[in-house]
């Protein structure tokens, strides 16, 4: 017996674009996009860190803007463009990814997909960010390993490479 108003997951369909492909999600419309991406589409690069939008590990792009996928219900992405770390570049050689390797940024690496997605959204509208711009854009992306200095350097490096 099911509670009224909660639909069976298989009965619902939400169409959106995921990393350039049209997809139809069958998870229930209230499911946070984070879990749809990870478990229905099996793209596990986007990470769960807090479920409250407080850590940034689940950062993705929604119509090009960096958002916390744990805070976006599936229903809200109907007809929209969603990009995850897996869709940032086909070969893993986006300027930010190259810069991340060059600066040897990650330690445990768990937060880094979110950091890179936040940085990518920043560079899209601010191709030559200052330290302050970077700080504002990535302040909500936590890193317990303490890679912040390298993240900043890598963003400047990528900006230089593309700018």
């Amino acid at each position, binding site marked *: *017996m*099911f*509670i009224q108003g*909660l*639909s069976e*997951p298989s009965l619902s369909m939400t169409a959106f674009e995921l990393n350039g492909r049209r997809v139809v999600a069958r*998870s*229930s419309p209230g*499911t*946070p996009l984070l*879990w749809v991406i*990870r*478990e229905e589409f*099996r*793209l*596990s*690069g*986007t*990470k*769960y*860190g*807090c*479920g*409250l939008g*407080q*850590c940034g*590990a689940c950062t993705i792009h929604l119509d090009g803007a960096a958002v916390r996928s744990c805070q976006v219900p599936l229903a809200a992405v109907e007809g929209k463009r969603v990009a995850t*770390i*897996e869709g*940032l570049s086909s070969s*893993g050689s986006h300027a930010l*990814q190259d810069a*991340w*390797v060059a600066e*040897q*940024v*990650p*330690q*445990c*690496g*768990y*937060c*880094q*997909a979110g950091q*890179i997605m936040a940085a990518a959204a920043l560079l899209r509208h601010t191709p030559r960010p200052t330290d302050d711009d*970077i*700080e504002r854009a*990535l*302040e*909500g*992306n936590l*890193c*317990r*390993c*303490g*890679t*912040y*200095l*390298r993240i*900043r350097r890598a963003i400047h490096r990528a900006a230089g490479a593309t700018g």
Partner: protein
Amino acid sequence: MTGPDLSRRAFLRRGVGGAAGLTIAFHLPGCVASEEAAPTEGEAPFLPNAWLRIGGDGTTTVVLAKSEMGQGVMTALPQILVDELDGDWSSLRIEEAAAGPEYGHPWLGPQVTAASSSVRSSMQPLREAGAKARAMLIAAAAQQWAIHPSACHAENGFVIETEGTRRAGYGALAEAASRLPEPDVVLLKELGDFRLVGRSVPRLDIPEKVTGRARYGIDVDVPDMLVAVVARCPTFGGSAKDFDDGPALRVPGVKTVVPISSGVAVVADGSWAALQGRKALRVTWDKGDLAGLDSETIAADLVAMARESAVTARDDGDVTGAMARAATTLHAEYRQPYLAHAAMEPPNCTALVTDDACTVWAPTQAQGKSRRVAAEITGLPETAVQVHTTFLGGGFGRGLEADMVREAVELSRDLRVPVKVLWSREDDLAHDFYRPPSYHRLSAGLDASGSPVAWTHHVACPSLLGRDRPLADDELDRTSVAGAADMPYDIPNVRCDWTRVEPGVPIGWWRSVGHLPNVFAVECFIDELASLTGADPYQFRRVHLRRSGRHRAALDVAAAESGWGKSLPRGRARGIAVGEAFGSFVAQVAEVSVELGRVRVHRVTCAIDCGMVVNPEIVTQQMEGGIVYGLTAALHGRIDIVDGAVKQQHFDDYRLLRMSEMPEVEVHILPSAEPPGGVGEVGVPTVAPAVVNAVAVLTGRRLRSLPLVL
């Protein structure tokens, strides 16, 4: 040439001799480094030992028996082995070791990644493993060419006829080498002959960590797997009295609700359903005996019990007499709270139990313990338990616990399907094994010239060793006084006492263990003594570190590189601290200001002597990370106990350092040929005292409790 350490042969032989164990170790799935690249070796790969395999196609596979949790072992350990092997770094594959006794820790027993010991404890065995394989490959080539092995040398995956033109790749020699006897004597390289060791070889794990391909525990995906979220009693020591699973079972996707040893598990077909199911679950808790516990009582107990009894950890000279004769005495008390690990990846574990086997996938630091726990729960022999180690999204000591393994194995045992146990962030903060709180009472006596002649340090805290085995009443837990009993200052009369206090809150190993609390107290107090005598705190330390050249050298580099003594912008000051942990020596200078009533750290200059360096960039990363971990503890870290439960729930009340709070960090590595020291933890302890000592310069106030409150 360095001769072989023959005492190690027995250890190596165990690895080589356990042929069945080796077969298991080498052919399990779950390779974390290059999943898509299936092994392509020829028919007769060369398996000289438990860490190395050379295929007929020349592919060199190094088996990683340590957990990669950000500290760089996946790169540093192969660097050591492949260097001695003279192997080809560019064709290297890394494979996760299947947990087994052949990978037991040479110092700590079961297979574990802990105590900043991976490089320290693996250096010799890995060098010997590489050197031995190289010798066998050279012997195989020499045999084929009918020349003496001494007429050949090895280079980058080839054996080369030194005075000739012939060369053969390791792949072509693998089969022949595998039929040769192991050499009795292996010659290790001279330090100057290393090609990889000592170089900042790029980390092997980074490419997959920037593309989202890296697989962590939370990413484990086994066919037909269910996801479980466990409701645990908020108060420590409590348990479920009764539960109503009706509302939980009505959540779409929830399959069942199962009571387990740690609480009540909601099992669903996905993470979100499990989380929603738990929200709907109604549990009545028996809150247990600790329901009235709070941080204030614990703090008061630490002080009160320190007055009653103690175990003496160190007693040099005549402290009482020297203190009585001293021209001046100084006393101070320091306090530290409970802390959570708060790794970015919350605890999780996946298990599959069948009638005759148990498979565990976990972001664990403790394969040996995980295996034992799984065997206990299932009743299977340990040999029937496979433990796959994934990448860890941070370890910091949390991964040394097997509580998440216990939950997953219990559930899969009961349900007979693969089960992943997922912890939420709230679960993580509320049910950690916390860094123990501590109370420190220090006293010192100075003679008329301002030289310290007596020093006492009394530490009161729970016992980590006593957690896992009974301690006798008069038994000392050395980890509780690490950095205190062995404080480095040259003072003739020194006493260190320890009082064990057990409030009952779960405690665990937390990056740098006893060193952070103890070094904090020692380095703040020595600074207070310097102030009292009007001495420069750097020079005062230097003078009284007469007998420890390595402390002094680190101090000198940190002071010089920080511009110690040079003028600073208005409102800024420097503080300094030095310490030793896990065989390495670190000094740090913090440049600090106080803005709007808050401490702001602008720059940290760090000097480290960690002996012989395998990968300087990884050492630098670990210092940066250690400084952030220590600074987070200094500025924000506190777990409060209220009514027997943890008050902090999320990252908004258990704050981690953010980018805007990040100081510039400069790391200077001292050249050294000493045996390698650990680097994962030694960066943590000194930053908090350096900051406190700078704040004292700015404000005249000595802050003696963490986190810092102005």
